[in-house]
């Protein structure tokens, strides 16, 4: 019997205690951040969308190799030594490799940050931009290469010519060597 009344009392009492707490919170300062208008400061270290600096990228392919989800697709191409443009890297050293294609699929990216740590030239970096939603999956594939398709075509042709020339030269050399061998 005493237990019964004690139970009823604890029911009543604990409910009152709870109501007191919620009443206190009713008038407390609110913590909502009204997102598009207000934001909390995103620390610069935050890992959000990746950004590539094409000037810095030397096409070493380390990022695409370390990526656990294979979201980085890189195509590279040799720079012809007698290229009239004489392309330079960000620090003035001559560029050895063209990067005609550097695509990141952010639908796949898991934002682990491994690509940024392996990059030798700090070309790829996380930004604090997280608002890049898209209506299509294609819209989430970002093309970072600085080369226009025409330029890519031009450089490809240049490379093909150069390799053909090299090959011809090599073949000639070999022929010459053979010939000289035969003579000997």
């Amino acid at each position, binding site marked *: 019997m005493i237990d019964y009344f004690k139970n*009823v009392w604890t029911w009543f009492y604990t*409910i009152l205690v*709870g109501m007191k707490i919620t009443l206190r919170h*009713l*008038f407390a*300062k*609110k*913590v909502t951040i*009204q997102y598009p208008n207000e934001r909390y400061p995103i620390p610069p270290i935050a890992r959000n969308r990746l950004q590539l600096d094409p000037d810095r990228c030397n096409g070493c392919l380390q990022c695409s190799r370390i990526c656990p989800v294979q979201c980085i697709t890189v195509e590279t191409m040799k720079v012809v030594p007698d290229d009239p443009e004489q392309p330079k890297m960000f620090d003035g050293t001559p560029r050895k490799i063209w990067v005609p294609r550097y695509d990141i699929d952010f639908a796949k990216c898991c934002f682990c940050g491994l690509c940024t740590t392996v990059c030798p030239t700090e070309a790829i970096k996380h930004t604090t931009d997280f608002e890049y939603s898209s209506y299509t999956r294609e819209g989430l594939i970002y093309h970072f290469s600085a080369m226009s398709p025409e330029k890519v075509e031009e450089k490809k042709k240049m490379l093909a010519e150069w390799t053909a020339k090299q090959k011809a030269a090599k073949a000639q050399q070999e022929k010459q060597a053979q010939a000289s061998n035969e003579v000997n």
Partner: protein
Amino acid sequence: METFNVFEKLLGQNILSALISVLLPLVFLIIYALIAILGELKISAWIQERLGPMRTGPYGILQPLAEVIKLIQKEDIVPAGANRLLFNLAPYVIFAGSFAGFAVIPFTAAFVPAEINIGLFYVFAVGAFAVIGIVMGGWASNNKYSLLGAMRSASQMISYEIPGALVILSAAVLANSLDMQKITALQDGGFWNWFLFGGPGGWSKIWILPFTLLLSLIYMITSLAETNRTPFDIPEGESELVAGYHTEYSGMKFAMFFFAEYSNMFIVAAILTVVFLGGWTSPFGSFMSGYWWGIFWFILKAMFIVFIQIWLRWTLPRVRVDQLMYLGWKILLPFALVCFVVISLYRIIY
């Protein structure tokens, strides 16, 4: 204060005055429901240290309107295998049941839609109507969750009618009447005349004061159970039964359930106000009292009760179905019975 129906007095007893008497509460109900929904959104948000809706209109005050518009636009889905007739009928039955209660709610001394001398009894009778709609909707949905919710709701509402009825009975004994206008008029003359504090009378009422306080508390609890609100929202207990009896409803039919819930909240609040808080009478005697002030006091008191209902909802966890029965039959009923006996004795002696 003399009680009468102002429209009948002005226009005579004809179809026009009857129509106004019916439509006025409906208009009030719609406006009230919008305000109560906003109140629920805002109070829950503030209790949880959020801001709540802020985008629709200044401080989000148009949010309930936006929700109604959204619900009207929604597709009306009838699940395959559902009993079409009952499924479509259920929300209207529930709404009709709760709206019928407004017929005897005395908003002020000068206006009550239907002045009948068994008002309290009538409210209780039509209040039980809602359970038919709930069982109808739950069964016709052809969904196990809905069925479970409906079964729970039926048992819960029937159990809680009884302590609630005992409370009303005690009040009727004390007031010697079932007429809501008469009960209200009795409590005129200041808050110490409210039945919450033992009703009008001399110092002898000190003997029943704890019991009337207890009775109002019991009625508060039973009213929560009857309107299916936390901590007694087990028929629609979200974490278990998804949404209980209205799981399968969408669009305007869901809105009807929603409206019915809020209108039920107001009805139980109104009964509590009339029976224990003096209805439309001013708490300060003749100060701020009159026909117009009556509306103000009545709605203020009822809204305060609604606020407490909302406040409790966002404070407490949900009870379990067997504990609900335990509370109803083994705690509330004996306490209500004791109060009833004491008040009856008091009535005989004084």
